[in-house]
Structures are given as C-alpha cells and as structure tokens.
C-alpha cells in the first residue's frame, strides 16, 4: 500500500531537481502568503465581489494584464535559464530533458499566455471606452473568456511541478509529440491547457466583433473609429477564422494520444506532416493577431504625442484588411523544408513577401504622422518610436527568410530565432509597454512615473538589441535553435556571452518597470482630468478610472478623433450633464469563475487520463451552463440618484 503511494507520488510529482524543489517551495510560500494577506485584511469578500465575479470589461482587462505580466515573468525566467545554460554549455546547469521542457514552456507561455492576454486585456480596457459603449456586447461571455484563459494558463503552468512539463517545442510537432515517442502527461498539459485558453480566445473574438459592429456611439461610422478599435475589429475577425483550426488540431492530437487514434501517425494511414500544416494554418494568422493590435496602439500613441491627425487613415485601415486576408495564405513558409514541390514553395514564398507591402504602407504612414508634428517624448511615445526601426529589422530579415531556397540555409537556426524575437518583442511587447504607459491612468487613475519609465525603456530597448542583433550572426555561423550544448572551438561562445548579457539586461529593464508600477501606485501623479495626454479619442472623455457605466450620457460623434472635436467645440460637458436616465447594466455573476474551474478539473482529469475526475467535472460544467440558460434576472438599472452621486463625486456634474 505504502509502496503504491510512493510509486504514484514519484510519477505525479516532479522529483530530483533542486530547481524544481525551489519552485515547489516558492509556490507553496506565495500561496500561503496570499491566503494570509487576504484573511488578515479581511479581503476575501472584496476579492469575490469586486474581481472574481465581475463582468465589467475594464476590470476584466486589468485582470488579463496582471496575468500577462505574471506570465511575462515566468517566460522571462525560462529565457534566462536557457541563456545561462547556453553561455556555459558544458557546465551541466541544465540537462537536455530540462532544457527541452524550458524552451517549450518559454515559447508557449510567451505567445499564448503572455502576448494574447496582454492584447485582449488592452482591448477590454480601451475598446468599449473608445467607441462610447458601456460594456462589451456579451459581458457574461467576456468573463467566461477570461476565466477560461486563466485556468488554461494555470493548468499549463502546473505541469512543471506535477507530472512534468511538455517537451516537444511550442509547435508540438508530431511524431515527436505523439503518444509513442512522448508518453506521459507533459504533452497532454500542452494540448488541454491550450484548448481551454483557445476556447476563451475564440469567444473573445466573437464578442469584440459584435461589440465593435453593434455598440458604437451614435454618429461613429466605421471610418470614424479610432485606429486601435479598427485593429481590434480586424484581429477579432482573424481570431474567429483562425482559432477553430487550432481547436480541431488540438482535439485530433488529444484523441491520438488519449484514445489511440492515428490522425498524426504513419501507422494506420495518418500523417505527421498534417499536424505542422494545421498548426501553422492557425499559427500564422496568430502572429497577426498579436501584432495588429500593437499597430493600432502605435497609431494612437504616435498621433497623440505628435499632436497631429493620423496620416493616411484609410490606407491604414485597408492595409490591415489586406494583411488579414494575406495572413491566411502564407502558412507554408513555416515548413518550406518539409519537402514540398517547388511550385508550392514558390507560391507561398511570393504571398509571404507580399505582406511586406501593406506593412510598409503602415510604416510610412507613421513616419508621415511624425513629419512636422509637435513631438512629445513621453515614455509611451518612446516605445512607439523605438518600435519602428526595431520592427523593421525583424520585418526585413522576415523577407530574407521568405525566400524559399535561402530558407534552407536559415531555417531552424538562431537567425530565425532572432527574426521572430525582433518582430514579437520589437512589435508586440513594445506595443504592449506603450499601451501600458498610455492607458495606465485610464485603468488606475494615476500616471506612471515618466523618469522611471524612461530608465526602464532605455535599459530594456538597448539590452534587447544587445541580445538579438548578435543572435542573427551566431545563427549565420551555424548555431541551430533548441540545442542545449555545443562543443568548444566553433567560435559561438563570445557572441553567446553578449546575447546573455542582453537577456539579463532586459530582465533588469522589466524589474525597473515593475518598480515603477509600485512607486507610481504609492506616489504617482493622480489624474483628476481624465485626459492626461491631451487625448483625441473617446476614452479620454470620461474620468480616470472610468466610472462603472463609462459614460453618464453616450457621447455623440461627428468626426474621427471624436474627443478632440468635442474639446474644440466645447461640448465635453455634455457627457455628465443632468438630467440623467437610469442606466441599464448587466449583473455580476460567479458562474463564469465556477464553470472555468470545473473545466480546469475536467482538463486535469484528461491530462492524467483520470476519467473518474474528467467525466463528473465535464458534466458539472454542462450543469452550470444549463443553469445559466434559465437565468432571467441578469441585468439591473442604475437609478438616477446613484448616477448623480457618482457624477458629483467625480466633480463633473454641471
């Protein structure tokens, strides 16, 4: 009996690695600390009522962003562990298995659990405010989306202390990721974790498409929408059409692994290559899902801090539309070397290069927006300005990689690794940091400290280049990705040391940013105006942070840059002008939280093939959904008196 328990635990828990024991201890300690703080300050009820059951898009956005920052920390630690190993390749810091696990979790976490929630968080924070709405179209679904993402991320992160991490790369290629070559729970964690988060993302796509198409303030036609809203609309469209492919691919591989099917094994007529094909049919649109909202943010930030109208609004929109269509016809460039015919490679090579055209149009539009503008070098603007050259390097090396014959040389090398980090960090991460500084006052009512912000910007941006520029060269010298060690005498060592110095520098930049968040929360300048930057769009028309219902009166829109127009006409007071009408709002609900955690347990059961857990948890999930269907009292009206109280508390009532 005791021997059985011992045997079970030695499989269930990851044993034998001091790094993992350290992680176990810190996880237990931080959980105890969280429980203690919440109990000591009697905050459990507050947590439940204000956050866990909220369906307010603004709060959901904040929770997404907190989760994204935590995941950035986790993914960053993974990166630093890898860099330490590569810098001293023969010291045995990490063994090959541990290294495989770490690059797998680094990639998966950074894309799915850092970039995605960061973007969706910004959409939640800004889109309803920018279009003059009071919430998203389906607030309950929005909360469910968040909690599904959250439990998906938690399930995935659990893997490294319970059962073992996935180790087949973030692309999880078959046959390596199949049941035969990679048995055990690791890859199951990948499949189920991504599945849960992916369902949440799909619902977000539907939600924001409906919100933007149906809930804009009167007068805001499509071509008067702010550029970030446009980018969110296009992104939602890509999500709705790309994510189902991931859902299906993950489900097929799950069926392969758990129930012995052969979709991706040669054995009974399946095809391992089909996984690569399906993965990238989703995977390439996915990279546009994470970059287009960043483009939208740069448009907002550059226009605001140049104090100028965005140059070429319509060209910006149509280039995004074109990018969204092209993003679906380039996926093969991720596996040029799989052995396709020359004709296949040529077509996808050309379609890939074609994407550079609309992207180039956008770059020129930003430059012309800056031209003759009154440029203000705020922290948000610095991130936006740094984006242009850094992203350009990534974009141009992307065109080099798109040349199929040349790709036979570059592929799987550090040149490729440097390329996609240039576009993902130089584009998405810089964009999210710009957005963080730009919308921080709108989220929390105080601005982030500019001096600390600029210090963190310079440290991070310079370190980013120290890290990734040498990586192109070490790639051209022949170093391939995902190798955990290499012999002496290849000449890679000096460049690798430089790269690692850059990587740790980025870590320091991030720490300064986190310190800035702490410092500004305590001492930062409070934003009483609601409009700290001289904003142009409607999110600056309301208070910072925005009141529960966003706008007491829905603003009337006449032009693009609607708030600027209102300021010029002197009609900004209209939003808070009595008399008011009762405001219709959705009720909070604990069901999304409960349902998502039930799905977590169902997922955990599937990971370990414990059907005694998976089946009841899945049934309970259905039950929660059935209860929700019969919930008729899901909304309330905020009475006029309460609106008057809120508005006069903000000092806006006139």
């Amino acid at each position, binding site marked *: 009996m005791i021997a059985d328990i011992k045997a079970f635990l030695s499989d269930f828990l990851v044993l034998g690695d001091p790094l993992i024991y350290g992680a176990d201890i810190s996880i237990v300690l931080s959980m105890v600390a969280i429980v203690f703080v919440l109990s000591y300050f009697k905050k459990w009820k507050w947590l439940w009522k204000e956050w866990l059951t909220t369906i307010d898009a603004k709060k959901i956005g904040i929770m997404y962003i907190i989760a994204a920052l935590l995941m950035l920390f986790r993914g960053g630690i993974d990166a630093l562990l890898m860099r330490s190993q590569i810098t001293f390749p023969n010291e045995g810091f990490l063994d090959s298995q541990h290294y495989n696990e770490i690059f797998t979790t680094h990639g998966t976490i950074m894309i799915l659990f850092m970039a995605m929630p960061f973007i969706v968080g910004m959409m939640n924070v800004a889109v309803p405010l920018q279009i003059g709405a009071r919430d998203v179209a389906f607030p309950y679904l929005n909360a469910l989306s968040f909690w599904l993402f959250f439990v998906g991320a938690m399930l995935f992160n659990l893997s490294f202390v319970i059962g073992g991490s996935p180790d087949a790369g973030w692309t999880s290629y078959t046959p390596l990721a199949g049941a035969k070559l990679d048995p055990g729970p690791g890859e199951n964690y990948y499949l189920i974790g991504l599945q849960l988060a992916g369902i949440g993302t799909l619902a977000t796509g539907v939600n924001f498409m409906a919100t933007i198409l149906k*809930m804009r303030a009167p007068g805001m036609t499509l071509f008067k929408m702010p550029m970030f809203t446009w980018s969110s609309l296009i992104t939602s469209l890509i999500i709705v*059409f790309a994510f189902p492919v991931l859902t299906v691919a993950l489900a097929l591989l799950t069926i392969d692994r758990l129930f012995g099917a052969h979709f991706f094994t040669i054995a009974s007529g399946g095809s391992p290559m089909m996984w690569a*094909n*399906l993965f990238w*049919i989703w995977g390439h649109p996915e990279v546009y899902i994470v970059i287009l909202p960043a483009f939208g943010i740069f448009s907002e930030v550059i226009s605001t801090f140049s104090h100028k109208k965005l140059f070429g609004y319509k060209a910006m929109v149509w280039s995004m539309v074109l990018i969204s269509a092209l993003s*679906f016809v380039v996926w*093969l460039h991720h596996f040029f070397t799989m052995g396709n015919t020359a004709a*296949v490679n040529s077509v996808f090579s050309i379609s890939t290069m074609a994407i550079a055209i609309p992207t180039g149009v956008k770059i020129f539009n930003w430059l012309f927006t800056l031209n003759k503008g009154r440029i203000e070098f705020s922290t948000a603007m610095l991130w936006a300005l740094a984006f242009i050259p850094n992203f350009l390097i990534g974009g141009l090396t992307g065109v080099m990689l798109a040349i199929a014959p040349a790709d036979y040389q570059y592929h799987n090398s550090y040149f490729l690794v440097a390329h996609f980090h240039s576009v993902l960090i130089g584009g998405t991460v810089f964009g999210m940091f710009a957005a963080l500084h730009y919308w921080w006052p709108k989220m929390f009512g105080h601005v982030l400290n500019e001096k600390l912000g600029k210090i963190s910007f310079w440290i991070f941006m310079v370190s980013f280049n120290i890290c990734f520029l040498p990586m192109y060269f070490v790639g051209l010298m022949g170093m391939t990705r995902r190798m955990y060690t290499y012999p002496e005498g290849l000449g890679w060592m000096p460049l690798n040391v430089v790269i690692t110095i850059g990587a740790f520098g980025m870590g320091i930049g991030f720490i300064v940013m986190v310190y800035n968040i702490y410092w500004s929360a305590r001492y930062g300048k409070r934003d009483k105006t609601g409009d700290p930057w001289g904003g142009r769009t409607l999110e600056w028309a309301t208070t910072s942070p925005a009141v529960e219902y966003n706008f007491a009166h829905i603003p009337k829109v006449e032009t693009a840059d609607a708030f600027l127009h209102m300021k010029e006409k002197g009609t900004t007071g209209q939003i808070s002008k009595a008399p008011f009408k009762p405001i219709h709002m959705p009720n909070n609900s604990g069901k999304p939280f409960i349902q998502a955690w039930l799905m977590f347990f169902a997922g955990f059961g599937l990971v370990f093939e414990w059907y005694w857990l998976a089946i009841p948890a899945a049934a309970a999930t259905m039950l929660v959904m059935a209860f929700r269907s019969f919930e008729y009292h899901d909304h309330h009206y905020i009475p006029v008196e309460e609106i008057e109280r809120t508005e006069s508390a903000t000092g806006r009532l006139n």
Partner: protein
Amino acid sequence: MMNENVEQHNAHGGFPWKHVIGLILSLALTLIALWIVVSYSFSTTFTLASIIILAIFQALIQLLFFMHLNESKSRVWQIIAIGFGFFTAATVVVGSLWIMAYSL
C-alpha cells in the same frame, strides 16, 4: 447607425422550438455520420461522399437554427463574414491538399 446602448431588452418569446429542432437534427446528422464510418458497410467512396454531404447539411443547420442567419436587418455583415468564411475554408482545404499532395 443603430445604437444598442440606449435600449437592450431580453426577449423571452415562448418555447424555443427552433433550437430544439436544430439540436435534434444536428445530433441525428452526427450519429448517422458516425454510423456510416464505424459500421464499415459501405465503399470508401460512398462513405466519404455521404459524410461530406452530411457535413454540409450540418453547417446549414448550425447557420439557420442557431446563428440567426436570416434574422438580421442589415445583411451586409453576414455576406462579408460568410464570404470570408468561404475564402478561409477553401484556402485551408485546397491549400492542404496541394501541400500534402506529394506525400499522398
């Protein structure tokens, strides 16, 4: 532009017959497709042809019974969305067949 900020009502109009019929039909189509494949009683060509036809009906049922295809006042978004859907579906299917042709 229609503004749904001002008015949002939950319509509770009677028993949702449409959804129930849709559910039964879609379950029936799924079970028929499963039976055709699992029973092994037909030729490969017939099996493939029939499950593709069933899949098309399945898609139509989803669109008509659950996705409010013909209930909107402005059709333009539906046409764009369905058009883009056809574009991506065709790209995925034709593209995959072409890419994988060398190994089939």
